[in-house]
C-alpha cells in the first residue's frame, strides 16, 4: 500500500496528465475528470483487490465500470500509471489509430477497459451483470461503478437501480459523482435530480455519502466503509460530492469546462497550480 503522500503525489500527477492530454488534441472532458481524480487514485491504488495484468473475465479480482465514459482522461491516466499499458500511450489520446479513443472502449483492446461507455446511462446495468456473473462463479470479489449525476436523468439507470435492490445484488458498489453540473448548466436547473441519496434509499439500496470527494482521505474512508457494507443483502451506493475542475482555480465553480480544452496560456497556469511530482509522460 502506498502512503498518503505518495497517493497525493499521484493525484497531482494525474491532474497534469488530464490537462496535457486534453490540451494536446484540443478536445476532451477535463472538468469531470479533474473532479474525480481522488476517487480513481484511491480506487485503483488503495481499495480494489486487483490481479497482475489484465484479462476480460476478471475472475478472482474486483472490477470497475466507468458509466460516464466522457471522463476518459482520468481513467486512462490512472490505468497507465497502474501499469495496464505504457505511460507514453497517453500521448495518443483521441488521435487516429489509438487505443485511447475519445470514450473508453474494448474495441481496440485497451487493457483495463471491459465495456464501451459514452452513450450515458448504460454502465450500471453492465456492472450488475458482471456482479451476477461473480455470484454464479462463486467469486466473492466486488464490482465497482462510477456514474455522473446528470447521467441519472437517463431512465435505464432507474431500471437498474430497481433491479439491483430487488435482486439483492450486494456485491456492487455504485458511486454517483454529485458535482451538480452538466453540459447545459447546473443539474438542478436542467432537470432537477433532488435528493439523490434518498432516491437510492427508497429504491432499497444501502447509501452512504462522501461529503468532500476531493479530500483523498475522505474518499478512501468512504470506499472502505462501502466495502464493509457489501454482502448484506443490499447493493451499496456512494453519493460523492465533488467539485468539477478541482485543482485548477479557473475551472472550478462552473460547468464551462465540461468538454473544453485549455489554451496554451491556460494550460501553463493550470500546470503551475499542479507542479510535477512523479514525472510527466
Amino acid at each position, binding site marked *: 500500500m502506498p502512503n498518503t503522500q505518495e497517493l497525493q503525489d499521484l493525484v497531482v500527477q494525474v491532474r497534469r496528465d488530464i490537462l496535457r492530454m486534453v490540451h494536446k488534441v484540443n478536445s476532451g472532458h477535463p472538468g469531470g475528470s479533474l473532479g474525480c481524480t481522488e476517487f480513481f487514485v484511491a480506487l485503483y491504488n488503495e481499495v480494489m483487490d486487483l490481479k497482475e495484468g489484465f484479462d476480460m473475465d476478471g475472475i478472482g479480482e474486483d472490477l470497475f465500470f466507468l458509466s460516464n465514459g466522457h471522463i476518459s482522461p482520468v481513467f486512462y491516466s490512472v490505468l497507465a500509471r497502474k501499469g495496464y499499458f505504457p505511460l507514453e500511450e497517453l500521448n495518443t489520446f483521441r488521435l487516429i489509430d489509438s487505443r485511447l479513443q475519445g470514450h473508453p472502449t474494448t474495441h481496440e483492446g485497451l487493457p483495463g477497459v471491459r465495456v*464501451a461507455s459514452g452513450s450515458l446511462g*448504460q454502465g450500471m446495468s*453492465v456492472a450488475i451483470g458482471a456482479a451476477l456473473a461473480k455470484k454464479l462463479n462463486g467469486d466473492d470479489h466486488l464490482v465497482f461503478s462510477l456514474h455522473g449525476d446528470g447521467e441519472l436523468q437517463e431512465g435505464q439507470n432507474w431500471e*437498474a437501480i430497481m433491479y439491483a435492490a430487488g435482486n439483492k445484488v450486494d456485491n456492487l458498489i455504485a458511486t454517483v459523482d454529485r458535482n451538480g453540473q452538466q453540459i447545459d448548466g447546473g443539474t438542478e436547473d436542467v432537470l432537477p435530480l433532488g435528493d439523490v441519496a434518498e432516491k437510492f434509499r427508497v429504491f432499497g439500496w444501502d447509501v452512504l455519502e462522501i461529503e468532500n470527494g476531493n479530500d483523498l482521505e475522505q474518499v478512501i474512508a468512504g470506499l472502505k466503509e462501502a466495502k464493509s457494507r457489501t454482502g448484506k443483502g443490499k447493493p451499496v451506493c456512494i453519493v460523492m460530492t465533488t467539485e468539477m475542475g478541482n485543482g485548477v482555480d479557473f475551472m472550478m465553480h462552473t460547468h464551462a469546462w465540461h468538454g473544453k480544452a485549455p489554451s496554451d496560456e491556460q494550460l501553463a497556469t493550470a500546470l503551475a497550480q499542479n507542479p510535477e511530482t512523479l514525472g510527466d509522460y
Partner: protein
Amino acid sequence: MTKYTDQGKQDTRSGYGAGMTELGRTNPNVVALCADLVGSLKIDTFIEENPERFFQVGIAEANMMGIAAGLTIGGKIPFASTFANFATGRVYDQIRQSIAYSDKNVKICASHSGLTLGEDGATHQILEDIGLMKMLPGMTVINPCDFNQTKAATIAIAEHHGPVYLRFGRPKVANFTPADQKFEIGKALMLNEGTDVTIIATGHLVWQALLAAESLENQGISAEVINIHTIKPLDDKAILDSVKKTGCVVTAEEHNYLGGLGESVSRVLATHHPTPQEFVATQDTFGESGTPEQLMEKYGLNNKAIEAAVLKVMKRK
C-alpha cells in the same frame, strides 16, 4: 421436385424453448434473461431445471441488454429474450454500445417478429428488425424457418463467439426440416434444385416458397429454392451459383423490403452478377390487426405472392 412433409405444425418460439432446454442440460455457462414474457418465449423448462441461471428483469429491456453484456464478463453466455420489437428497436443503443461495439457474447433471441403475431397489431409487429440488426458491425443475424431449425440454431449459436440476433415467431407453422439437420451459421441450404428461377427465402416464407415451387412445377416452371437462415453473414456463393444457372431471382421474407434479406441479396448481385430480382416483402408499411393468414394474404407474403413474383421476374430475363 424434392418432397418435404409437414411433420405437424409447431411454433418456432417453441423451437427456441426446446433448444434452451437442451442447452440448460449441456452447457453450464448458458444463462437466460427475460423481460416479463417467459410463457411467450417458451423457456419454462429451462427455468424450472436451472433456476439459478435465469434472470427475470421485469419490463425493462434496456437493463436486460446491459445485464446480459455484463454477464459475459466472467464467461457466461447470456440468451436475452423478449418480443422482437422490444429486443431491437426499443434498445438499439444499448445493443450498439454495450453489446456490439463492446464485442460481447450475447444472444438476442426475439419472438413475435413480423406480421404473424397477428391480432396485437402494428405496435408489436416489427418489420424493420433485420435491417436494424444487420447494420451493426459484428452482429450475426439468423431467421430460421421452422421448429426444428430454430431449435438447431439456438443450440448452434451457443458455440459461436460473438453477438447474435436470432429471430423467430409466434404462429404454428409447418415443421418440415429434418430434426437431425446440422445447423451451420452462414451456410445456405438448397431445398430444391431448379433451372428457371431462384427463390431465396427466410423464416416463415421458406415453406411458402416450397408450396409455390410445387405449383410452378405443375405449370412447367422449374424453381430452385434456397433457404437462407443466416442473413448475416450471407452465403454469397450459394446465391451466385444459383442465379448464374437460373438468371433471375425472387427473395421472400416477412420484413420490410427496405433493409431485409432482399436488399442483402441485391448487394451481392449488383456487385458480382447483376440479375433481375423481385421482392416478396412488405412495402415500407406498418402492419395491422388480423389473423396471421389474413395478414400474410393482405400484405403479399404467401405462396401466391411468390408465384406471381416468379412469373413477373421471368419475363425480365
